[in-house]
């Protein structure tokens, strides 16, 4: 259970929600929706956007015949319009122990930040009549919130975000992604919110999502303590996700190498996302939440 004090961060005021409503989730792919929505689809339908002509066949709605063409060509053609459908939007929120670690007792955890970002993006999706489903994962895929649609369902999602399940085990992205691919019935946009501190790597997991036709958007949540630890001296370091520990002497040289290693990791993740055409944004806990959503996510082409 997330500490109650941190749940205050999930309170969204109306002014902020109004700002979120003006945003729109971007998707690199066109997915087939389930219900009528506000997103383009490959299907023709009844929207106002003209799509194509086809020959009239008996049984077609006479209201769709373009009489102007018939006057010029003396042939019957039926006007086709684009079909606008909803977009399935999934959130995979890393709930592992590393996400719940914070350098100080009162500091905001990466998990808090991930949930806030997820809740914000979910509200944007719901406001645009998209369908939203949330998952927690750690060593394996956890419980799902269930598909929600419409702003009226935001409260349901918020309750899911506020009371996350306690998941054990170290982060195993690949296993979680594999199970998610099996459980998700419809393809859509997948936001993966994690620190990606998986010793097995993140590459296979993200490739698997793309293989299954998901449009993966990576939100890399980091804590300043991960980037530049303040520990010094003779230390016995314990891993937050396992019982393993490491004895070392943290001097300037070692810390310098550590920072280089973390920087390499983050840049590798960024480069991987760029080359594999995944959306990528870094959501540090030190960045103000409003600033993160309204600026950083827009700059990262997550929302528009």
């Amino acid at each position, binding site marked *: 259970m997330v500490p109650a004090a941190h749940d205050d961060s999930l309170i969204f005021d109306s002014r902020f929600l109004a700002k979120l409503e003006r945003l729109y989730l971007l998707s690199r792919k066109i997915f087939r929706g389930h219900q009528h929505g506000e997103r383009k689809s490959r299907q023709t339908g009844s929207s106002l956007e003209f799509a194509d002509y086809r020959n009239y066949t008996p049984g077609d709605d006479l209201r769709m015949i373009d009489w102007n063409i018939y006057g010029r060509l003396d042939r019957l053609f039926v006007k086709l319009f684009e079909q606008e459908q909803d977009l399935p939007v999934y959130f995979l929120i890393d709930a592992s122990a*590393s*996400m719940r*670690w914070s350098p100080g007792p009162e500091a905001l955890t*990466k998990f808090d930040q991930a949930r806030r970002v997820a809740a914000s993006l979910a509200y944007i999706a719901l406001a645009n009549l998209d369908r939203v489903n949330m998952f927690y994962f750690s060593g394996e895929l956890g419980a799902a919130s269930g598909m929600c649609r419409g702003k009226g369902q935001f409260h349901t999602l918020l309750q899911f975000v506020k009371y996350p399940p306690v998941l054990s085990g170290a982060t195993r992205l690949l296993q979680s992604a594999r199970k998610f691919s099996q459980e998700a019935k419809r393809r859509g946009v997948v936001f993966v919110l994690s*620190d990606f*501190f998986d*010793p097995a790597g993140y590459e296979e997991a993200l490739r698997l999502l793309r293989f299954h036709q998901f449009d993966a958007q990576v939100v890399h949540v980091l*804590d300043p*303590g*991960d980037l530049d*630890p303040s*520990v010094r*001296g*003779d*230390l*016995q*370091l*314990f*891993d*937050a*996700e396992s019982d*393993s*520990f*490491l*004895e*070392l*002497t*943290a*001097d*300037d*040289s*070692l810390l310098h*190498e*550590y920072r280089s*290693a*973390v920087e390499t*990791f983050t840049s590798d993740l960024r480069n991987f996302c760029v080359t594999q055409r995944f959306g990528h944004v870094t959501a540090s806990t030190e960045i103000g939440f409003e600033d993160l959503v309204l600026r950083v996510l827009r700059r990262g082409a997550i929302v528009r």
Partner: protein
Amino acid sequence: MTFLHAWAFGFAGLAPVIALLYFMKVRRRRATVSTLMFWQRVLVENPRRTAFRRLRQLLSLLLHLLIFALILLALSRPESARFAGQGNSTVLILDLRARMQAIESDGTSRFEKARLAAGDYARQAGPQNAIAILSAAATTEVAAPFSDDEKPLHDALAQLIPTDSGGDLDAAVKLADELLVSRPGEKRIVVFTDAEPKIQSPKSEIEFVAVGEPHDNLAITRFSARPLLNSPQTSEVLLELRNFGDKPARGSVELYLDDALLDVKPFDLKPDGRLVTASPALPRAGHGQLRARLDVKDALAVDNEAFATIPVPRKTHVLLVTRGNWFLEKMLGADELVAFELLGPESFKKEMAASFDAVVLDDALPPNFDLTSAPGNFLFVKQTPYNVDGILDQPLVSDVDTQSPLLRLVTLQNVTFLRSNRAAIPALPGEWKFSAPLRSFENPLIITAERGGQRVAAFSFDLAETDLPLRVAFPLLMSNTLQWLAGHQESARASMHAGESIALAPGQTVRIKDATIAGAFRPVKNGWYSLDTQNSSSSLAVNTFDQRESDLRSAPMSSHRPSVPAAAVRQLTRIPVWMGFAVAAFVLFTLEWWLFHRRRTE
């Protein structure tokens, strides 16, 4: 390599304790991090770091043990055998003459500057450089024998004080040369003085360390008092001032008698000028301590003050044993300095003599009188212990010893004697020292005898049978005789130079603070000293009165740093072995501290 403090190696037993403490588990601070992934990557994937991590613990232990070993080596005071045979000896001669009290422009005296410079040299003392210190003034003394430890040398330097005496440094240099004769290695004499003296070239290498600058100086070079011959009740004072400077000097000199201001005399001296004054007669009273003080402020203060003693006579207590002698009674009664008592011969006992300065036995020699058992000084008239058979008829005065204290200023010309007893100096004088200052050919008319503190005078003639009492010579003869018998004439010496030595008479002592000096006395400070005997006390004035001490213009134009001789340079440049180890330990300790805080060692 020789270890002077080998006991220090006993601490080597602590080395295992250091190793044991070192291998004790370090209590590490526990901390939780979000992932060990990156730490492991840094530690495992960097083979250099991994290898160094294994090494640094060992490196740290080795550093600690090395520092410990260096400290032990430094404590053991190692000395290299390479230098053992190259020891040298140095004699430091510190000038303690009065001129070294001159105050320089920075407010310190030349002596203090010399002492500081000598202290710098004393710090060079070591196993290869033995140093001795001589003090040079009127006499040369060994202030510190040869020592390789600087502490006794510094202690000896601290004990030295400048004297008020003059002197030259030649004797000190000769003594230093003698001290160095038997010393091995290089020999060196370093003289700390204010001007390079003229001395004979010593056998050893000599160096002069000059301190001070030339100064003008005013000085009292002579100051004495003496009774006037024509009026013994009064004295006259001689005062000589000199200007040892290139500029005219003006001021005043104050005269004090028994610490009461007596007179102030202004003076005006030309450059290098001299002023001699004889002041009017002074009343003879009190202790007779006369002091002159120059009311000027110059470089040397010790010669601005001079001391003198007016010989204050004291009464001579005389016992006159006679059946009646008008001349003697009148003469003794007329002399203000004589207090006499009259006694008949039948009442006289020889034990009475101890209570008087002199006993006059006028034709009253007790039967079987033995001088050796009679304490006191005696004047025998007519009947003397030295009379032999026979009478001299109208003896002529043939030999007069004018050097005799009895006959000082006595003129016996045309004195006639009707007759005189025949007397003779005993053939076996024993302990007595006889003389016959007045003779009539081979026959002594006056015999003096002296043994230890006892004195005897014998007039072999009857005063009534000579016209001597009618002459001016009579009171002088009697006064001289009584003064000699009473021993007052020996105290006539009322002044001396500082540093000069005098032999004290038997029973005479000088008391300085808590010490009583007998035998010989050599004052080194100016002032009055009291020469005490059992019955009397006299004052002795001590002054510098030395032109060489007062003339400060002979100092070098500017002080200069001494040229350090080759041996000293070697000594200075050769860092002691123990210090090398200590420095190495300190450097390693600093390095280890730096490495530890840079987390290079554990």
